[in-house]
């Protein structure tokens, strides 16, 4: 018996998006950006000056007074959550063989990611560095004006 024609199921021409391939590419692209974003985050917060000792409300308020750090932190938040959730999804796919459990766990992972991305973005962009009624010594110096 001879095979007369060979089908090539791997050809993706005209087919719908291969989301596993998109995910594969995203993990690499976001990974490179996250190395830069997180190393920068750790350096400014833990290595410069008194490091973790210096972190308090006034420190965060001082940083987020600058749109540069707002965008930096927002980008880091979104990329880290998608990257992390997709990694967790891969692990669940590897170890959870029961279909209902697998789907439920992946649902929980993405639900947590969406809730925390929305919460985080709201915090970064609606942040008030000088909340009324707070003791002046807890606030950044920009509030005195």
């Amino acid at each position, binding site marked *: 018996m001879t095979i007369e024609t060979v089908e090539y199921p791997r050809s993706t021409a005209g087919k719908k998006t291969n989301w596993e391939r998109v995910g594969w590419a995203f993990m*690499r692209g976001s990974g490179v950006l996250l190395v830069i974003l997180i190393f920068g985050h750790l350096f400014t917060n833990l290595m410069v000056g008194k490091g973790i*000792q210096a972190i*308090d409300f006034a420190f*965060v*308020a001082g940083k987020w007074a600058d749109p540069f750090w707002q965008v930096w932190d927002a980008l880091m938040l979104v990329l880290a959550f998608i990257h*992390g959730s997709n990694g967790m999804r891969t692990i669940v796919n590897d170890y959870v063989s029961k279909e209902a459990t697998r789907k439920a766990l992946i649902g929980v992972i993405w639900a947590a990611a969406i809730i*925390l991305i929305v919460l985080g973005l709201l915090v970064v962009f609606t*942040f008030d560095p000088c*909340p009324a009624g707070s003791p002046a010594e807890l606030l950044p110096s920009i509030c005195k004006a």
Partner: protein
Amino acid sequence: MPAAQTDASTIDSAARPAKKPRKGGTLYRGNEGMWSWVLHRITGVAIFFFLLVHVLDTALVRVSPEAYNAAIGTYQTPIMGLGEVGLVGAIVYHAFNGIRIILIDFLPGGAKHQKLMFWIVIGLFVVTMLGFAPRHLVNVFEHAAVGH
């Protein structure tokens, strides 16, 4: 052809040196390739769970300065300070090994150098942590010794 088969098996057993029994039996041991993967998973999961907590504690800036300062104060204790060295270590490993994975995928013949690249990752990890850990621990323990 039974004759040829006998021939082949005779040559086979004569040419091959006696098999050394491996320690640990037949359990798969993938060496650098496997351990880099195991570490990548463990550090990834650890970082993910920290990320969940870290967004929540940072969100306290929206509650009040007092609430945020109380939460961040717990990160400045000696035990948490040691934990932060572990966290940063997990991030540094995951970052460098992630770059190794990208190089394996995209560098021509990258997979051939995965072992060497693993040891470069370990080397860079050690150098980075030698830069970070002492400085961070001095910050944490000076703070603990002096107090508020």
